[in-house]
């Protein structure tokens, strides 16, 4: 029986079905978990899609390998996947830093005014600037902000992913948002907020 990519059995049930040889469970888990891990990895890696795809593929590979030993009720599949992806992203960030630091300067160049300025300030560009700003945050703050405010996890779920207490998550999230706001304050023009302010 084919399973829906979103509805139907829980991810945890699908893991058990997968371990028992159900091919439809393999397809459903691929469709459910891979996009979430990819999106998370992309944000953690400053929008580097190629590296994010590598992280997503490696995370899913580890998921399949541990499926026979999966114990229901201990953790959620997505929480487990975020934790693995987090560790893989951290490894890659460390490797990057050894090669050269990535900063906001790596964000796409902006044109000063002109007729194409409106297009450049579309949503896609705003997200690119945000991802570049996220890359400037300390690792733990970036993880907490992305998991809480972009991936939509609850604080207890983030605590499991990051293997810290809920209070520490709240602190990291708050500090991360403040730091992000500070970084982006210098990017208001790139984000188009100044134009909107003037227009209003």
């Amino acid at each position: 029986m084919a399973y829906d990519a979103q509805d139907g059995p829980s991810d945890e049930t699908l893991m058990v079905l997968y371990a028992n040889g159900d091919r439809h469970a393999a397809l459903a888990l691929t469709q459910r978990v891979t996009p979430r891990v990819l999106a998370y990895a992309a944000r953690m890696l400053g929008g580097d899609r190629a590296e994010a795809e590598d992280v997503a593929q490696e995370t899913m590979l580890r998921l399949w390998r541990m499926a026979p030993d999966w114990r229901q009720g201990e953790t959620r599949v997505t929480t487990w996947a975020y934790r693995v992806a987090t560790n893989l992203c951290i490894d890659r960030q460390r490797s990057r830093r050894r090669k050269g630091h990535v900063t906001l300067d790596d964000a796409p160049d902006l044109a000063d005014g002109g007729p194409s300025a409106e297009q450049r300030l579309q949503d896609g560009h705003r997200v690119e600037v945000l991802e570049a700003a996220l890359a400037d945050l300390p690792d733990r703050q970036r993880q907490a902000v992305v998991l809480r405010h972009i991936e939509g996890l609850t604080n207890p779920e983030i605590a499991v992913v990051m293997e810290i207490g809920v209070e520490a998550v709240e602190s990291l999230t708050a500090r991360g948002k403040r730091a992000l706001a500070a970084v982006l304050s210098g990017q208001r023009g790139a984000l188009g907020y100044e134009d909107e302010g003037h227009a209003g």
Partner: protein
Amino acid sequence: MQDKELDGLLALAARRAPTPSADLMDTVLAEALALQPAPVALPERPAPTRGNLLKRLAALFGGAPMLAGVVSAGVMGVVLGYLNPATMDLLTGGLTSAETMDLFPTADFLTTEG
């Protein structure tokens, strides 16, 4: 930057999640199927039938002919035990000259008090 602007930016990022390429999805699924444990097949166990029970019982006695002999002897024993000895004369044509004897001619003592 105001909190409202930052929240709006984060919400925008959540809505514009990158979608995985078809190649990535195909690769992940191919690896999933390659690493998937084989389905566990339960060993077939035929339901016990009447025929099997009779065969096992016959084997216990050394085969069907032997079982038939044992059953016949058993039935005959029951018949002989049930029939009145006088009837046996009818069956045997008087060859056995069955006689009736009283094994406890004075069994009244068993029920007499005193």
